[in-house]
């Protein structure tokens, strides 16, 4: 049985990264030209890694399934990116960002990785500004900050509600520069379908050209996965339609351990489901909780009147509203972490206080903020005795400059104007903290296969804090991986090009082709989405916001049945050698089914509650997540055995040398 070695460097926590960097082996510039690296994914992690590796001199080949690297799903991130700059002088520091992230993750992440993340965070902002990322600024021309959930400082940098877009376009521009120089060869509309291993090392991938259907062999000295998360296992999520787990899952099958798959993030503020036709859910940024107050009516008769359309939320007086987050968590109020806010919404809705027809919605209300900003603005403009309408109109303008695009998005989807009536929101799947196991160098259990960003497991524990995903993606891609990969590649300077004529490439390519023919030849009666939706329902009901042993066992059995029926009755029209979106979906859903089963197995094993993983059997008297540190202060790492329902379980014990484990409290 392989033993997990996290390779955490010696020394005190604040010296580990700098010591490691100064000791790490380097590859000289002439030799870098002799080394090829494949990067799968062009989001913040993959895009940043591609650009940085190419700048260093490696020959990079980057793959994305979208028609352009600029469309990777990092682009949809809205709210912001954290960095310990302390520009606001509000007591922020590297240590505080480190501490907040560990605590936010409910003490289930690796100290050394998180500290490194906090250390490099400040540099990310410098880097992005130098690239021309237009962050929000104050009138003096300096950068502005906002606050996010689970912290007591303002350390979040942002570009309105399009921070992810701006950061991704920054990484894309850095990539474009290297593509223009011929240092990155870009393969858009290509999807990785398997990893090729030669003599125990990752040496290439098999990819499908999505336009022609051609199965291609690509070799390299190392493979980097920046392929994102697996939230689409729930069918409905805030992920893009194409987001998938295939690259990570195929790598898992080839021997990479999969860690903490049950750690998924249910984001509290998304637009509620409107009907069966729904294909995806839309996030309303956490940044809105800076100014929005979350509530449901206090009285059941008001709830019923609202559902029947007899009462409007604006007609309910303040004393008849239950601002339940402010009530339950006075010190953090509406800015508690996501897992806490989501469960609190579920608790109110389960108790019958949901405010839409399905009973699964709460209000996010901007009226107080609009009034407060309006009054401030009137004072600034020296308007004496402004009328209420004047105040509100000024306030709405302030809100528009802060969140304009989010309000417009909401209006277009729901057909209701949030400047005048509260938004309706409900939790939805948003991010996955679990992923492929990596050591401190971001290398998986397969030598030469590195994993960055959401696709790995290491930094967010059981719950990710807002504005930390962008930070991690860019930290891994720009500042961590380009160093640590050199240590591995230093052994490859004399290897020479890896030939795709090796039998391992032929064999893996054949397996991929056979798998595709197998799927095409089922010629059943049901479209891929039928199975995906069924899987999603099982996952949401049994492996969603609250889990228990009975439900998890039922999910494992149900997924087995879905799997059998899928391979018996799926219908994929058209041919394999053409642009065939149904085939693409089928290949992705096949892997999501197996991953879904592993998530349920992992959730069943972890009979404690922590962060986003809430086991009903393990809660405090007040209904908060109750950890079991004695038995579960470890990372689960699952090994594929050939039977997806019987994985081997390995553990990496988490050692806390700098932060004391305490029950998380946001009261």
């Amino acid at each position: 049985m392989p033993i997990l070695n996290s390779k955490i460097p010696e020394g005190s926590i604040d010296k580990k990264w700098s010591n490691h960097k100064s000791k790490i082996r380097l590859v000289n510039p002439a030799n870098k030209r002799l080394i090829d690296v494949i990067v799968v994914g062009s989001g913040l992690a993959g895009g940043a890694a591609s650009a940085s590796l190419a700048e260093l001199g490696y020959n990079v080949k980057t793959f994305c399934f979208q028609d352009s690297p600029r469309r990777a799903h990092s682009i949809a991130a809205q709210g912001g990116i954290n960095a310990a700059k302390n520009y606001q002088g509000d007591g922020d520091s590297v240590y505080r960002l480190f501490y907040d992230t560990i605590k936010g993750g409910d003490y289930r992440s690796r100290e050394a990785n998180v500290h490194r993340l906090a250390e490099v965070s400040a540099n990310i902002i410098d880097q992005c500004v130098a690239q021309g990322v237009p962050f929000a600024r104050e009138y003096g021309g300096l950068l502005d900050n906002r606050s996010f959930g689970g912290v007591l400082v303002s350390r979040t940098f942002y570009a309105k509600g399009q921070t992810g877009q701006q950061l991704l376009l920054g990484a894309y521009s850095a990539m474009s520069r290297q593509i223009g120089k011929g240092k990155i060869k870009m393969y858009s509309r290509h999807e990785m379908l398997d990893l090729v291993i030669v003599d125990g090392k990752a040496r290439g991938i098999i990819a499908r050209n999505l336009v022609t259907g051609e199965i291609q062999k690509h070799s390299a000295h190392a493979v980097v996965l920046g392929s994102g998360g697996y939230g689409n296992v729930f069918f409905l999520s805030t992920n893009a339609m194409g987001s998938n787990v295939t690259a990570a899952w195929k790598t898992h099958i080839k021997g990479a351990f999969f860690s903490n798959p049950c750690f998924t993030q249910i984001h509290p503020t998304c637009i509620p489901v409107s009907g069966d036709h729904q294909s995806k859910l839309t996030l309303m940024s956490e940044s809105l909780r800076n100014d929005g107050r979350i509530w449901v009516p206090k009285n059941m008769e008001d709830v019923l009147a609202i559902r029947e359309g007899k009462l409007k939320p604006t007609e309910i007086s303040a004393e008849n509203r239950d601002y339940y987050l402010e009530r339950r968590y006075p010190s953090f109020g509406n800015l508690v972490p996501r897992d806490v806010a989501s469960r609190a919404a579920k608790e109110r809705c389960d108790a019958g206080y949901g405010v839409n027809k399905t009973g699964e919605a709460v209000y996010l209300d901007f009226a107080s903020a609009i009034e407060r900003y309006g009054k401030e603005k009137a004072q600034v403009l020296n308007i004496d005795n402004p009328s209420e309408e004047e105040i509100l109109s000024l306030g709405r303008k302030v809100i528009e400059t802060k969140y304009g695009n989010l309000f417009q998005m909401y209006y277009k989807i729901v057909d209701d104007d949030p400047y005048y009536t509260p938004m309706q929101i409900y939790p939805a799947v948003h991010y996955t903290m679990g992923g492929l196991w990596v050591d401190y160098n971001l290398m998986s259990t397969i030598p030469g296969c590195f994993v960055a960003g959401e696709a790995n497991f290491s930094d967010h524990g059981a719950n990710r804090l807002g504005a930390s995903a962008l930070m991690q993606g860019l930290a891994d891609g720009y500042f961590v991986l380009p160093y640590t990969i050199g240590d591995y590649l230093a052994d490859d300077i004399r290897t020479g090009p890896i030939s795709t004529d090796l039998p391992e490439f032929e064999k893996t390519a054949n397996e991929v082709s056979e798998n595709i023919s197998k799927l095409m030849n089922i010629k059943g009666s049901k479209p891929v989405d039928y199975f995906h939706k069924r899987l999603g329902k099982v996952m949401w009901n049994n492996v969603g916001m609250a889990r228990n042993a009975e439900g998890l066992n039922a999910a494992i059995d149900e997924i087995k049945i879905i799997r059998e029926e899928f391979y018996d009755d799926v219908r994929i029209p058209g041919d394999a050698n053409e642009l065939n979106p149904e085939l693409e979906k089928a290949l992705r859903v096949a892997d999501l089914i197996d991953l879904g089963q592993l998530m349920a197995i992992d959730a069943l094993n972890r009979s404690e509650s922590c962060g986003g993983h809430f086991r009903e059997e393990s809660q405090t008297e007040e209904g908060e997540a109750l950890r079991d540190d004695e038995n579960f202060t470890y990372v689960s790492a699952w090994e594929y055995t050939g039977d997806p329902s019987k994985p081997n379980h390995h553990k990496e014990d988490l050692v806390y040398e700098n932060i004391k484990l305490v029950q998380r409290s946001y009261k």
Partner: protein
Amino acid sequence: MKLTLKIWRQKGPEEKGKIVTYPIDNIDGDMSFLEMMDVLNVELVKKGESPVAFDHDCREGICGSCSMYIDGEAHGPDRGVTTCQLHMRKFKDGDTIYIEPWRAKAFPIIKDLVVDRSSFDRIMNAGGYISVNTSGNTIDANATPIPKEDADKAFEAATCIGCGACVASCKNASAMLFVSAKVSQLALLPQGQVEAKDRVLKMVEAMDEEGFGNCTNTGACEVECPKGISLENIARMNREYLKAMVKK
């Protein structure tokens, strides 16, 4: 709602395409346009017919993948939205809807409604960046204050999603709005000044090489742009271009 869809079907880049009629029923006003297309495709798959291929991904108006020309307008009749954000409540029971791909020489059709927009990427590769390495060894982010007005304008230009609606809407299939948005973003920031002249010349040259048409100031691009990218950007790019030519 009951609708009649008239959709451009084309098997491949070299094949001849044609409009095919599909009746569709039980469409709810709360569906997005692409969810309506999902319903159609499920029916086609069940019947054993080939589903309509179209580009889409984020379905929240930010990735820039979706690209349908609906009833003669890029992204359809609503304003300030992409096709994925267009909702069926904008249509009436009994409507006939024409759905076509972007049409431009520089965007060849791959299949049905899917076009090849890699020409946009090649323009960016020619100069749509600031030449700074990603080592992190730059100056502190607050060392160079930027007037808020400039930063805000740069941001507005930077919100372009690269969908190509501007090209599809332009009678000359010009890419001026797209290119000028990037040129403007970087020209408005002090970090972008160093290479400003070189950048605008290279990007305009790449744009011309790709076969995009010229700008004749009709302004259709600005009207149809889902992100409201302003024509001011084209004026700014023209100034930048002239400046660069004069000082070359």
